[in-house]
């Protein structure tokens, strides 16, 4: 089992969609929200995902396919 931390960034058209609920329901992933800021036009959620590496990878691919951006909470590691 792995614990991974991400920030999901939601575009306007996905603000009202239950993406995180569906992620937990449709994949073997436990979701744990730690911080969030959701507004009318956009929003972000910082959360921890618990599951197997394979299941988390599948779940994140599905999240990204919905138009939600997935990033590491530490920002981009690769620097100039």
């Amino acid at each position: 089992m792995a614990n991974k931390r991400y920030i999901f960034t939601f575009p306007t058209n996905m603000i009202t969609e239950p993406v995180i609920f569906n992620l937990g329901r449709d994949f073997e992933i436990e979701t744990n929200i730690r911080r969030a800021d959701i507004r009318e036009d956009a929003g972000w959620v910082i959360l921890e995902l618990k599951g197997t590496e394979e299941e988390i990878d599948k779940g994140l691919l599905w999240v990204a396919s919905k138009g939600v951006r997935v990033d590491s909470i530490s920002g981009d590691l690769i620097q100039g």
Partner: protein
Amino acid sequence: MAYLNGLKCRECGRDYPTEPLNVCDFCFGPLEVAYDYSTIREVVTRDGITSGPLSIWRYKDLLPASGENPVDIMTGMTPLIKANNLGKELGLNNLYIKNDSVNPSFSFKDRVVSVACTKAIEFGYEVLSCASTGNLAASVAAHAARAGIKAVVFIPGDLEQGKVINAAIYGPTIMAIDGNYDDVNRLCSEIADNYPWAFVNVNMRPYYAEGSKTLGYEVVEQLDWQVPDHVVVPAASGAMFTKIWKGFNELACLGLLDGVEGMSFGEDQNSVHHPSVSTKMHMAQAFGCSPIAAAWNNGQTHVVPVKPDTIAKSLAIGNPADGIYALKVIKESGGSATATPEDTVAEGIELLARTEGIFTETAGGVSISVLKSLVESGAIKQNERTVVYITGNGLKTQEVVQGAVNTLPIKPTMDSFESAYNG
């Protein structure tokens, strides 16, 4: 010795010990160094600083690693040049260039890596690591060589050979990753989680980032302990931008600015603003990777990550870790954020070279182009004291200014020479 109380979460304020940590376990906010400013206030003086080494370690009392035996390749105390020619061209009488392209590995990264490497050795690490497209890799490799420890650097597989050589010459292990930008980030995140290495911008990040404060300290010292009216700073993650501001305010709060009374740092050390620090902080990004400038100009309090697509590779961070804090600094200082068009970057490089004899890389071209637009918009006035930070050397990105080459081919005769010279 370093005067630290530990680490503190920037979001929820939870305290942590002085350890190689970068994220709060509770809210996943970033951890920052918490200083013991009451002791620092007793030990730090202008005389103590000016009698120190000609490197960033003259500010050792204000850095989070011990200055007794630093890993120092003589980074810092780079020139602050009065740019009369460029000023005349732009209509400014009080323009300065902070030329940080002359650091030992030719970029400002030596400041942050010197601090991170020194701290890594304090923690007992034997491997220094990073993921980089150029400047950071070279600096990490150079400092590891100096410290006598191993360096492992990760680079994109398609990185230009010249940039690889800039790091390779110091003898690190270089992993060239066959994958896109996201793949490189993802793999490095996993490696940082699983290997007992000092990853400079991951588990060393709270200490590493503090090295950029010295860019603020030096400018103040070089301006006879005064802050400038404006600074123009290139931004990628936004960390350097916020730390220059922090550096100005630390010196003010400690009573080290000329004619300024010190004051308390309050509860949140990272947000303190001394009223005498009137510097307007102007951020410079290239249009192809300008998430912080976009957020600022759209009035957002959060930064929406982007896919970088810019010739300014050293600024190509699409998901800037310090973006929201940089936005706060812009607001607090009354500054601005500008995304300059990609085709102005090379123009900026050429303008600086032609007027001041300084050859900068693309990040410097971004800064000069943004300076020009700030003057044209009236944001910077003729007599205001303005400092532009030039953070990397032009030899690293020669490919973007190949159009500057205009040789006159001649035969080895005087006739041929005079004919060509006289047009």
